[in-house]
């Protein structure tokens, strides 16, 4: 089945008439996944939105419960709510790979986060492949492919003027069934693009285990501002803080995105901070991205979308960091040389 790009608007209108629909779009000079409606122009030509789609499943601020007090009566109410079905149309293969990572974090290893799960189960992900990956894109050597997205509900393969539409899950099949009036029979040749930028991750997770005291961290620390930009534009950074808003007789507890780049992220009662230095915070971020996550979930946490490289005010480049780690000598050899 084919979907002519020029006719996508009619399909989007039809989807939006049934349920909430999110599309990549400009937003006040930046871009993100925006609720489709009057005045929203989808930007399927954007490679990556400035902000990733993670807030659709894991909002930047999310209330967990509320409490109120009336004399001696105390009421505590969960803020959990079922989520109505919604569609995310036009995310990229790297972003779909990021959803796989968030799934692993919030739904596996013995704990299911019900707030995440409700949104995840309500979501239908329609992934558009990339005909022209950007210069900072390196998904196909770390986590994904510009022309595939195995876990997407529906895959839209870019074939120039049209997309080749393939449902990949039951949810996707029923979505595509409903889209039929807007699709056409026929064949087109999908563009199978590859990224120019490649990284060699093969030895990186293991090598990093011996690099806790490597000079690389102070070098990156010298460069880095330790602002939170990379963690907030990253589609897979999932760390959060739990805080509260307390008024006299009512309050709420919420979770909100946090960043390992911030000093107060590891601030402890009594004033000690185990990651007081920039270098230790930078090390934590890349260790988590490139080795700790692999140990626990057996996959790379970085999906190669390039957002952090593009938006870092100090031009910290994770692909160069991977290169440097890949080229470094394993710690035991260094140690052997030191003893020689």
């Amino acid at each position: 089945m084919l979907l002519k790009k020029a006719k996508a608007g009619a399909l989007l209108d039809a989807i939006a008439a049934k349920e909430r629909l999110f599309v990549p779009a400009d937003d006040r000079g930046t871009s993100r996944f925006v609720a489709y409606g009057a005045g929203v122009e989808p930007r399927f030509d954007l490679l990556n939105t400035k902000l990733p789609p993670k807030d659709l499943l894991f909002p930047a601020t999310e209330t967990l419960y509320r409490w109120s007090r009336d004399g001696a009566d105390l009421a505590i109410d969960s803020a959990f709510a079922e989520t109505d079905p919604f569609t995310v149309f036009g995310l990229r293969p790297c972003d779909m790979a990021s959803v796989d990572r968030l799934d692993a974090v919030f739904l596996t290893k013995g704990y299911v986060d019900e707030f995440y799960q409700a949104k995840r189960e309500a979501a239908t992900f329609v992934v558009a492949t990339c005909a022209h990956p950007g210069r900072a894109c390196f998904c196909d050597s770390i986590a994904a492919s510009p022309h595939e997205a195995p876990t997407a509900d529906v895959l839209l393969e870019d074939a120039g003027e049209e997309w080749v539409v393939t449902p990949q899950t039951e949810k996707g099949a029923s979505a595509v069934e409903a889209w039929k009036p807007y699709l056409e029979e026929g064949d087109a040749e999908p563009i199978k693009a590859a990224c120019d930028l490649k990284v060699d991750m093969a030895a990186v997770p293991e090598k990093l285990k011996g690099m806790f005291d490597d000079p690389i961290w102070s070098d990156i620390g010298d460069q880095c501002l330790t602002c939170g930009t990379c963690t907030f534009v990253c589609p897979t950074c999932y760390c959060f803080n739990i805080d509260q808003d307390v008024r006299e007789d009512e309050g709420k507890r919420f979770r909100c995105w946090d960043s390992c780049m911030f000093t107060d992220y590891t601030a402890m009662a009594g004033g000690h901070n185990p990651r007081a230095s920039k270098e230790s915070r930078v090390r934590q971020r890349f260790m988590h991205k490139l080795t700790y996550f692999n140990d626990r979930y057996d996959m790379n946490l970085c999906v190669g979308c390039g957002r952090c490289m593009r938006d870092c005010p100090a031009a910290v480049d994770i692909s160069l960091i991977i290169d440097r780690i890949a080229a470094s000598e394993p710690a035991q050899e260094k140690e052997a040389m030191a003893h020689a």
Partner: protein
Amino acid sequence: MADVQDTIRERAAALLSSGEVSAVIGWGAGRFDDVRFPLVVKRAEDAGKLVFDASCVQMTAKRLLEHTGEGKVALVARGCESRAVNRFIADHQLTRDQVYVIGVPCPGMVDPATGETLKRCAECQVRNPVVHDELVGDPVPEPKPYRFAEVDRVEAMSREERRAFFDEMYGKCIRCYACRNACPCCTCRECFVEQDKVGWQGKAFNVNEARYYGMIRAFHTGDRCIECGECERACPMGLPLMVIMHQQVRDIDKLFGPYEGGGLTDSGPDPLRTYKTDDIEEFM
């Protein structure tokens, strides 16, 4: 600028190998030709990694504060970095003898996103270093372009329009604190936003928390801002932060002037913390 780059490398190597400085702060080359990053060189043999061209968009001076105490540190300083050095001295963050300034007159940098002059350079009032131990390259003309166009635009707005302007601005803020971390005036050891026990700054992400952060930071830095524009350049969300800083510079000039911004000398004046009996008191 190739000659300037060569001289910077030579001087960096000489300063490091003689032991006069323990580090040289400049720029290094990223993966792509238009990407440069703040680089701290600590060994003479790495001096060749320093670059200087129109892609050196970052104002690097804040790094000085992380390396003083390790011996004298050299800073490759354009007008903006040199004003930051003065700022640090006036704010007692370092003393003049802790820094060796390799001054570089600056022709203005290029925004890789647009190919045009970087906004902070297009508004720059001081291209030549105001303080230096040596100068690399010839002084450049100071065109002193008009920098209040955006202030004029916002001032001309109705109250409602202005409210909408700031709502849009802070509605986009992700509170990454890049502006604060890049700012040469933000040198508090502990920022108010991190004083959790006091709880000035809520952790939730919304326009109110963002606006509160932005306004407090603006007032904390208002009479010290060196107008380098690095906050605005560093902002990943493109907030027009300099409209607030320029507004304050102009207001201070009108109320307490003449005032042309901070960092022009190493002893202030910081008008909002300087009391004079003939200060204007129209609000009292």
